[in-house]
């Protein structure tokens, strides 16, 4: 009896050992390929940005592979990505993270699109100790939970419009300004709001309107009527693409005069294309702009990236694509510095990242957010023929045009 017991034990542990070793050597690196896992929104409400994310990842995979791949332990590897469609649904994203890790055996992950979905996936990757580099989740709450395996190449949400307030104060001769805010009630926009509250405190500015717009927002008339009555120095709006489009439409319709209008998601909303000249003078927060002068050896610089991306996918890259490409560059760099596929070592290498990419400098704070890349503000500027362009106006170091301030009154346009 004892013999049989011993035999069974040996058999089981052998099987276990075989399964264990094969799955680890099989999953993350198959032959000379490093397989990364990603759940992105290919259907559902985030599908446009989900596709930008995927295109950004694919572009970087192509580029890195064609330029020699990743060198680890004297051997050259190529990147490959397993994609799943998370249907823009956080629950599905969490399931897919679980599936990628426990069924497909993926040991390194790329992030999904949006803060909400990243929030759903992070606990799973954290549980399994799978390093995840994400490029599209900016919510501050992602970086305050003490996650050890989550790294974001983008600046956190609270910094999105911080620079707008500081610029307004600067233009006001260093004196505090009156701020009107209208933010949607979702994690991301409320984080942007907290950033403004901090900036207001810092500069001694006063918040005169603090409206929290409902998620099913389609009408901002009441907020704008208040703005008209109170006449603040700055109006800040954040409510994803819907918020940006609604704000511009109603500001023009109600002829609201405000010296500075700053908002998020102008890029994704295609403001100037949809609104034409009405969008003029709006200031928009952006993670990246093609005219920034950051450089790297894979994509050269923003202009080249813009050109190559347009050639490959037939449309100009929004910042969501650029930051997604940057995530792959970070992984490549970390693998090479770790010189190993051990998850802990790669994680430590990621934490020690300090590099420049075409997208910006990347260095992670202990919380995992990228602290060395500032947000930029661009202004929608139209010429007399009605053709509009986004020009970087702040911070001054990167500016390619002069900020037009104060915004001309509607009666004078």
């Amino acid at each position, binding site marked *: 009896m004892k013999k049989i017991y011993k035999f069974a034990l040996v058999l089981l542990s052998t099987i276990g050992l075989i399964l264990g070793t094969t799955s680890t050597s099989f999953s993350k690196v198959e032959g000379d390929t490093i397989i990364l896992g990603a759940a992105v929104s290919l*259907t*559902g*409400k*985030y*599908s*446009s*940005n989900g596709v930008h994310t995927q295109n950004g990842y694919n572009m970087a995979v192509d580029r890195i592979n064609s330029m020699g791949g990743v060198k680890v332990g004297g051997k050259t590897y190529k990147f490959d990505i397993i994609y799943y469609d998370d249907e*823009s649904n956080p629950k599905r994203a969490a399931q897919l993270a679980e599936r990628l890790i426990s069924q497909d055996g993926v040991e390194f992950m790329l992030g999904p699109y949006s803060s909400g979905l990243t929030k759903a996936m992070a606990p799973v990757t954290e549980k399994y100790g799978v390093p995840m580099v994400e490029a599209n989740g900016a919510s501050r709450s992602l970086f305050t939970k003490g996650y050890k395996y989550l790294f974001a190449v983008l600046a956190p949400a609270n910094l999105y419009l911080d620079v707008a307030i500081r610029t307004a104060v600067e233009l006001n001769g260093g004196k505090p300004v009156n701020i009107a805010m*209208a933010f949607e*009630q979702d994690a991301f926009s409320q984080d942007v709001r907290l950033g403004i509250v901090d900036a207001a405190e810092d500069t001694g500015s006063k918040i005169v309107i603090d*409206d*929290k*717009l*409902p998620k*099913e927002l*389609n*009408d901002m*008339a*009441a*907020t704008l*009527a*208040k703005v*008209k*009555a*109170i006449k603040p120095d700055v109006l800040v709006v954040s409510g*994803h*693409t*819907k918020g940006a*489009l*609604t704000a511009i*439409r*109603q500001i023009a*319709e*109600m*002829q609201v005069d405000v010296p500075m209008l700053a908002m998020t998601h102008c890029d*994704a*909303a*295609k403001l100037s294309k*949809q*609104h*034409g000249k009405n969008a003029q003078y709006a200031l928009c927060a952006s993670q990246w702009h093609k005219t920034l002068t950051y450089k790297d050896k894979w994509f050269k610089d923003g202009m080249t990236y813009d050109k190559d991306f347009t050639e490959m996918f037939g449309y100009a890259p929004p910042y969501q694509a650029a930051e997604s490409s940057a995530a792959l560059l970070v992984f490549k760099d970390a693998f090479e510095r770790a010189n190993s596929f051990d998850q802990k070592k790669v994680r430590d290498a990621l934490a020690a990242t300090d590099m420049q990419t075409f997208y910006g400098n990347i260095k992670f704070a202990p919380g995992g957010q990228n602290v060395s890349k500032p947000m930029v503000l661009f202004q929608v500027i139209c010429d007399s023929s009605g053709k509009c362009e986004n020009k970087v106006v702040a911070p001054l170091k990167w500016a390619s045009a002069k900020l037009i301030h104060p915004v001309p009154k509607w009666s004078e346009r």
Partner: protein
Amino acid sequence: MDLLIFQAPILIVQASMDGILLGILFALIAYGMALQWGVMNIINIAQGDLVILGGYIAYFMYLYGIHPAWGVIVSPIIMYFVGVGIYKLVINKVVDRDLFISILATFGISILFMQLMNFAFGADVVLAVSGYGTTMLFDNSVTLPNSKIFAAVISIIFAIGLVIYMKKSKLGRAIRATAQNARAAKILGVDTEKVYAATFGINAALCGVAGALISITFTLHPYMGLPYTIRSFMIVIVAGLGNLPGVAISGMGLGVFEEFADYILGTEFRIGSVFLLLVLILVYRRFKLAKKREYLK
């Protein structure tokens, strides 16, 4: 609590006008819902999705260089056939069943429509520009977008047209007869199947008009239908079933209430306060009914 509106009384005018214009547009959607609820006893969860689809029709006209205002004519025609199609495919199988089944069925249609629209039109938020300008009153302190005024006028025209049609036309009489008693109408020779299909078609057409108006006043997105469903549902509940003038009044009332709640309580309580009002009205109704029952005893 914000007292701005009392310090600047001109805002009261602005808020009332905004609320009324908003309410009239919602009332049009609620009109369609009340009609088919009354006739077919179906609560259509896909109401908002029909609105959005109607909006996309106007938006595509706009993309091809046709002024989106023409959408208020083209969109209802197309949407009528979409409505009849939905009836023939799904609704006719659930029309005599209990309310729960019809809610499930229309919920399914709603999900299907959202996904199909997302697939066909993409997930970007879009809008059509009417270029109608703005009406300014009281020395530019009250501004009313002409597109919203246009939307309200068109809504009123369609609503009045519908009431007249229901009173005067043969189909209108058949619809009213079916609403009163489907079995009796059938015995008297009304083809209720046809009446149901037409009712659903008319509802979809009204949604088409509203959608075209929304494309020039607000924004469109494949997943933005549900708020319109909920809003029209509330308007119908407040008005009471089969009470068409009530729908118009409750639509405007809720619109104005919502605007004032925004100014006085704050934007974050805008939607919440409307729901609170709904609860209060329902509780009040219950008390009134209970009293009536006691009286009858």
